[in-house]
């Protein structure tokens, strides 16, 4: 009798927990409980840091034990680059000032400056279908949802959730991500949709397919006003015609090498922050 009773309560518990999970799933799907995810992200962040420790230590150690010769070589190279870039920056400044003057005389909106912050990517995997990474900067460093992340001079992705000391960035190869782009050669617009495969996106909504050639560079178009325009996104790898549904798919390789990235640049555009307020 007692045995039967305990099995009965177990079944009741089971249905209780199933109900609770389904409730959570629906609420999360409707984005009704962002606080729950933030709380869980805060709780699980130490675990992610723990898993990242071996990678970050190897990284630091290899840098520590680099030979003096190699370091001085690198240093020299960087010095050379800084010289070149400072010269270019000077030119850019004069052009920007000129642009500002012209805009003032035309009475159009002023261009705003951008600011950047370097964030470390934690070496932690998500499940196989999502391309998302955790970074070590959060709302305490003024990171916000929808913020754009760059890698060098190419687009990396955007911030999708934040907690005080960390944030999740969705890469442009995530199946749920799409980037408005345009062909640098023909200026035709398209949408770069993530495929879930590393370094691969597919280009959709291309009007003139015959015009697309292998090796074409697609850059961000700035449509949708989320991504800054004219950053390289992907290079067309192959065009594949499928006779079954008479559709042509265009796959492209991203300019960002997601396998190698350990750091990314967060960008603050003054325009975005004013829009948010």
């Amino acid at each position, binding site marked *: 009798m007692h045995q039967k009773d305990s099995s009965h309560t*177990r079944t009741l*518990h*089971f249905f*209780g*927990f*199933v109900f*609770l*999970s*389904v*409730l*959570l*799933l629906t*609420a*999360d*799907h409707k984005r009704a*409980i962002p606080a*729950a*995810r933030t709380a*869980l*992200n805060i*709780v*699980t962040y130490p*675990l*992610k840091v*723990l*898993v990242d420790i071996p*990678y970050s230590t190897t990284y630091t150690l290899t840098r520590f034990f680099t030979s003096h010769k190699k370091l001085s070589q690198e240093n020299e190279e960087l010095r050379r680059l800084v010289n070149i870039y400072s010269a270019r920056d000077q030119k850019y400044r004069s052009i920007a000032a000129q642009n500002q003057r012209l805009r003032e005389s035309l009475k159009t909106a002023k261009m705003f400056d951008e600011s950047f912050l370097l964030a470390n990517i934690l*070496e*932690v*995997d*998500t*499940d*196989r*279908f*999502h391309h*998302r990474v955790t970074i070590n900067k959060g709302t305490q460093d003024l990171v916000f949802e929808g913020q754009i992340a760059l890698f060098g001079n190419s687009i990396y992705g955007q911030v999708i959730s934040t907690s005080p000391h960390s944030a*999740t960035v969705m890469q442009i190869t995530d*199946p*749920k991500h799409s980037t408005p782009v345009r062909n640098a050669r023909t200026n035709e617009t398209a949408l770069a949709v993530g495929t*879930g495969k*590393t370094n691969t996106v597919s280009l959709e909504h291309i009007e003139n397919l015959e015009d697309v050639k292998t090796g074409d560079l697609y850059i961000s178009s700035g449509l949708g006003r989320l991504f800054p325009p004219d950053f390289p996104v992907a290079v067309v790898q192959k065009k594949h015609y499928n006779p079954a549904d008479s559709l042509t798919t265009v796959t492209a390789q991203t300019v960002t090498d997601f*396998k190698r990235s350990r750091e990314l640049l967060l960008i603050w555009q003054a325009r975005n922050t004013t829009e948010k307020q």
Partner: protein
Amino acid sequence: MEQLTLRFPGAISFSLLIALILSIVHLPDSWQTWRPEWVALAVIHWGILFPKESSYIHAFIAGLLLDALWGSSLGQHALGFVIIHFIAVRMGERIMPKTFSQHFFLVFICVGTYMLVNLWILGITKDKPSDWSYWFPLLSSLLAWPLVHAILNHLHIANKSL
């Protein structure tokens, strides 16, 4: 009759934590497809051997943490693990604990159901995986089961009594 006791209190939570860590350790892309469902295997192990001590709360919290770590919908893996726990406890009473073929069958049913539920949820949230590689972890979980079972066996002691 063998009486099993845990080697230390919190052994179940400890093993689930290790399984969670193993689930997010960075692997090369081609290996990632084959990552066994470590947490699922741990939940099955405790469900079979300690149906009283391990509870739905363990499974549920481990699932929520995995959802946060993997960035999946909140409650997706929690639901999966609660179902696994239910099946493991119910079927664990009916199998011989030392028969390996029965173990494999149980793991197959548990992980299979869990992945099917996950697939439905992914389908509803429009995240559906595109190819058959989705099912690879089922195979690798079966292969990893003897190892997980053997290691987790060290976390409890068998008191032999007549």
